[in-house]
């Protein structure tokens, strides 16, 4: 099986657990139906999924020629057909022209601004078996869930460094990191930050409404791959296995009152051109349906994880990644584009000149180790990280790097407008 590069052994598993893991990996009939909603999962009426999937299924990128790409680049507005041409192999020789057009669109919509944020992982417990992820339930790592006191201490350290926007993340375990826990963490975050986003397991619209009340206004959910057949072979167990529930997470979040939603495929899992197309269309159709919503895109490539150094982004090299980002920018000029510390400093310095509008800084993907990392203080009790980062620059270093490019670092571009929050200033 192609995805066997992901599978790792875990000698600590009991005989029964090991047998279950093996069976899930080897026998597809032992897995649940990935297209069937589990109990408690809200099903919404929406045609967005159908439209995205119909376009993606019909996408034959080898059909596009240099003439199609040149035509796409000459158009004032980018159609879906143009977007398909820009993602095709025929567009790669046009990378410089694509970058020039993308840069123009970025400057028109965002000026010289580049936003800075940091992610804060508050728990790494996970009930899913996603074979490429460092947090997967069969991977033997140090698990940790921060207490409210520990979260507050981490937040203080981060806020003291100058960062004003935070993205809080958990592993996907409703049992270990329940909604109330995340909601309380949001309330704490509001004390220290001016903008709070979440990247957690997908929940129902009323639950998003609760988290919104607690102070979060942005929800990011990565679809990983938009190919359900491939998805099924990678997400073998747990709630995350349900592909359509995940697909509809952003729409439920908007219905729950969130201001903005983030999207992404994990590039390298499947055919990246189709995944990039589907990601762009997911944003496109949802924006048409919810025109007030703020949309953003990420572009993560696969990274090595603890206990598996071999994981890599396969055929998505830097040039392809740049092509995808330029195509996103030209097709969706209004959307924010985040480039995380999965990419190295050289790439991030370059891409903020072209298409990216948001970067992370002072990143740790481990649990509860900001204090140790920021202050040099040793702390042994931290939880293990989700993946290895490639750019470990601090907030100050990132700030200076953005200025050095003639761009303007922006720490916050958000204002809470809810009545009960007005007292914040």
């Amino acid at each position: 099986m192609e995805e066997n590069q992901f599978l790792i052994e875990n000698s600590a598993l009991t005989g029964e657990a090991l047998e279950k893991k093996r069976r899930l990996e080897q026998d597809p009939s032992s897995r649940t139906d990935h297209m069937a909603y589990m109990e408690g999962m809200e099903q919404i009426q929406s045609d967005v999924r159908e439209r995205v999937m119909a376009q993606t299924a019909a996408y034959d990128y080898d059909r596009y020629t240099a003439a199609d790409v040149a035509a796409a680049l000459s158009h004032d507005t980018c159609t879906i057909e143009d977007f398909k041409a820009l993602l095709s192999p025929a567009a790669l020789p046009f990378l410089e022209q694509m970058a020039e057009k993308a840069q123009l669109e970025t400057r028109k919509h965002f000026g010289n601004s580049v936003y800075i944020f940091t992610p804060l992982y508050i728990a790494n417990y996970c009930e899913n078996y996603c074979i490429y992820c460092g947090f997967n339930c069969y991977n033997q790592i140090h698990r940790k869930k921060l207490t409210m006191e520990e979260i507050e201490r981490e937040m203080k350290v981060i806020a003291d460094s100058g960062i004003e926007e935070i993205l809080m993340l958990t592993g996907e375990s409703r049992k270990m990191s329940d909604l109330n826990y995340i909601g309380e963490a949001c309330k704490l975050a509001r004390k220290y930050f001016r903008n709070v986003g979440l990247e957690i397991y997908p929940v129902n619209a009323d639950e998003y409404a609760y988290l919104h009340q607690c102070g979060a206004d942005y929800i990011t959910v990565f679809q990983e791959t938009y190919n359900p057949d491939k998805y099924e072979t990678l997400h073998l167990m747990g709630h995350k296995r349900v592909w359509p529930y995940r697909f509809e997470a952003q729409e439920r979040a908007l219905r729950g009152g969130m201001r903005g939603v983030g999207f992404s495929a994990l590039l390298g899992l499947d055919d990246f051109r189709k995944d990039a197309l589907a990601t762009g269309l997911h944003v496109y159709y949802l924006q048409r349906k919810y025109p007030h919503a703020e949309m953003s895109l990420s572009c993560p490539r696969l990274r090595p994880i603890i206990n598996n150094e071999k994981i890599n982004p396969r055929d998505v090299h830097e040039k392809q990644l740049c092509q995808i980002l330029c195509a996103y920018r030209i097709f969706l000029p209004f959307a924010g584009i985040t480039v995380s510390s999965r990419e190295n400093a050289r790439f991030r310095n370059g891409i903020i000149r072209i298409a990216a509008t948001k970067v992370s800084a002072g990143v740790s993907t481990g649990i509860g180790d900001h204090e140790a990392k920021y202050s040099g203080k040793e702390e042994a009790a931290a939880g293990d990280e989700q993946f290895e980062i490639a750019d470990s620059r601090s907030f100050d270093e990132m700030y200076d790097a953005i200025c050095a490019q003639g761009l303007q670092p922006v720490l916050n571009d958000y204002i809470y407008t809810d009545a009960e929050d007005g007292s914040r200033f």
Partner: protein
Amino acid sequence: MKDTFTLGGHEFTSRFILGSGKYNLSLIKAAIEDAGAEIITLALRRANTKKEENILDYIPEGVTLLPNTSGARTAEEAVRIAHLAREMGCGDFVKIEIMRDSKYLLPDNYETIRATEILAKEGYVVMPYMYPDLNVARSLAAAGAACIMPLAAPIGSNKGLATKEFIQILIDEIELPIIVDAGIGRPSQACEAMEMGAAAIMANTAIATAGDIPAMAGAFKKAIEAGRTAYLTGMGRVLQRGSEASDPLTGFLGD
């Protein structure tokens, strides 16, 4: 006589309102100087409280702050942001920006009228950013707006006077100052709007994305002044095409 215009009882000489978003804060002072601006906008959502990032520290004394309500999606949200601006010491001026569209960022005229009504009653100098529609402009005037700020083209697009005919109608029909906002990409376009009789120009992206920000601010200043002078002087005769007919249509008329 000095050529000035008035907003909520305050008199201004400079007809160039400068945006402060999208560029390096350290350039703001130079941009204000080279633009000769007396009013500078401030997105409250950007007004960071941290010392090194506080835009208020970069704005010279004597310049009027114009906080905007960017980020608001409804009249109620705009009102709340206006209140926050006042509490932060930004004065009584407020530019109303209400968008319910994240793609084009076009203003919502209906919500804008509602917010104008509320804030004007509370004593703000209300400057509403709007899509140029005569009926809406009349409603805004009736609601107590200090001026009308129609868009020339979608914000950031630098496309110039795409709504020219409709802005001209506002200039002709509305008693309040018409300040052209958004979409002005070149000094020549700013000049053209001033020739039409606009009271002032508001620009941000065109300056923020220029190679030399203070120099471009200066170029806009000159263009705006040129357009204003041309308007005051009265434009000379401009023939539509060709020359005058040697065989006049009315030549047949007898006594």
